């Protein structure tokens, strides 16, 4: 799976920030906008040669001399690999912080490619971005990806860690848990 480096977390945010769908969608919309712009620029060239169709994800079908239709590509078919910078994830985990040490933390890792046995690992704080470092605490969940990044013509091996961001519980969430507790309490005669 390849994504733009700056947008790789937009896709992750879809997972890490389910309660805030809008942000995840914003990232995808940005991606779309950029591709549409690229298409428009490309379209000018295409107009010069109507038979030329350079981008496989955009279908150019002249309906008349003045009007052209195009299909907005579906996100699943959106090709990002021809963008300038991208990150290819080779392996992903979800981790939970189990122990906090002076310069590192210890975590349990669930392999998202093969969720059978789990792994444990130690992560230095300097591997974590300053804004995510604040989120390190016992029990905190994070996503860890390793892969290769292609940036400005260079390929680099990368390890990316992103801590999960969630909306805090709402009053409704608390009420729901209280209702559930009340239900069990009564149903099981726990007086």
């Amino acid at each position, binding site marked *: 799976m390849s994504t733009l480096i700056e947008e790789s977390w937009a896709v992750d945010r879809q997972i890490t920030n389910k309660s805030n769908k809008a942000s995840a969608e914003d990232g995808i919309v940005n991606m779309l906008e950029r591709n549409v712009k690229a298409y428009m620029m490309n379209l000018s060239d295409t107009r010069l040669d109507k038979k030329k169709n350079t981008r496989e994800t955009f279908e150019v079908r002249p309906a008349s001399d003045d009007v052209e239709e195009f299909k907005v590509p579906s996100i699943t078919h959106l090709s990002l690999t021809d963008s300038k910078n991208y990150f290819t994830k080779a*392996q992903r985990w979800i981790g939970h912080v189990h122990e906090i040490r002076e310069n590192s933390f210890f975590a349990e890792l669930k392999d998202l490619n093969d969720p059978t046995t789990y792994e444990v690992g130690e992560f230095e704080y300097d591997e974590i971005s300053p804004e995510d470092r604040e989120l390190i605490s016992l029990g905190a969940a994070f996503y860890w990806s390793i892969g290769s990044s292609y940036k400005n013509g260079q390929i680099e091996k990368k390890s990316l860690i992103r801590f999960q961001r969630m909306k805090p519980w709402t009053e409704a969430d608390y009420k729901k848990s209280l209702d559930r507790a009340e239900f069990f309490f009564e149903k099981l005669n726990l007086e």
Partner: protein
Amino acid sequence: MDNEMPGSTIGEITIIGTGGGYGESIVIHLGNNDWAVVDSCVDPYTKECLPLTYLRSIGVDVRNDVKIIICTHWHDDHLQGISKLYEEASEAFFCWTEASDKKKFLQLVGLDYQKIHREASNSSTVEFGNCLNILTKRNKKRFAQENTVLHSTKVNDKIRSEIISLSPSSQTIVKFQEEISTLIENYGAANKKIIKASPNAKSIALLIKLGSHRAILGADLEVGSEKLEGWINVLDNHTVIDKRSTLFKVAHHGSENGYSKRVWDELLENNPVAGLTPWNRNGKLPELEMLERYCNHSDYVYMTSLVYNEKPKKRDKSIEKLLKTLKCNISEVKYKQGLIRCRVNLESEVGSWCVEVIDHAFHVNN
């Protein structure tokens, strides 16, 4: 493995271990086809509930003959798969620790349960929540606290078997209420998993009476420093231990904080059978020094598997290379199932345990 079901007057205590943090479980035959299961664990590959698989493998009618399922405490490594077992064992009582404020406890379970879609809920809470759902349809429950008979089986006119809880103490139960508040405060956030950091004083240690034979199952009970909690309370305030035990499931994976010399001196016979399940996550248990100490107490120390120091998982060569290049410091927690099966003749007053080691289990003294 001899897959024969024990006869009606053969008692059995089988310790199932998984070689790391995948959990442990104990299966008990009290006689007359009455079975009990203490805790549960799963095979991480097949997700099968191991005590259930074992019971089926020896031909136990799980639906009718499992009489009680006991959760010693709600840590992940003791509860995985328990709801599947409970669902099948429709005649069983479900037993857990008494809590003074049950509503508050249930709220904590409810809050954690809601994290199920956020990758932050504990499997133990999910399992426990599922068991509560089943329980609402059956309502066969028992609460454990010190010196309480949880189950009793009359094998014949002369032989009786019992399961008795030795802990938690009344003081621990009261303290648990405060702990729940702290847990809600510290781990209540929607993206936080409850990490086991709390003391194991709430664990249910059990005395098993199989006719005239006695066994103590230590769960994760720690010694601690409080006189009215943990092993100190069991030693000083028990009212149910009538004789020394000849079998001991060593407490808390053989850790130093689960060890009390007084337990060996006052509650156990000389040279008892001792069963250990290892722990292998951020720390490794038992430590070698502790293992030597247990071997000094008994010639019959058994472990369900070795404690392994592992490398990362086997993966595609390119990913293994990438992990090396990035100097990722990770290791796999290997799954190694092992069973220590101990059987004893309930009709004999002095007979000893017949111990079998299955799969990765082994006799440590050898």
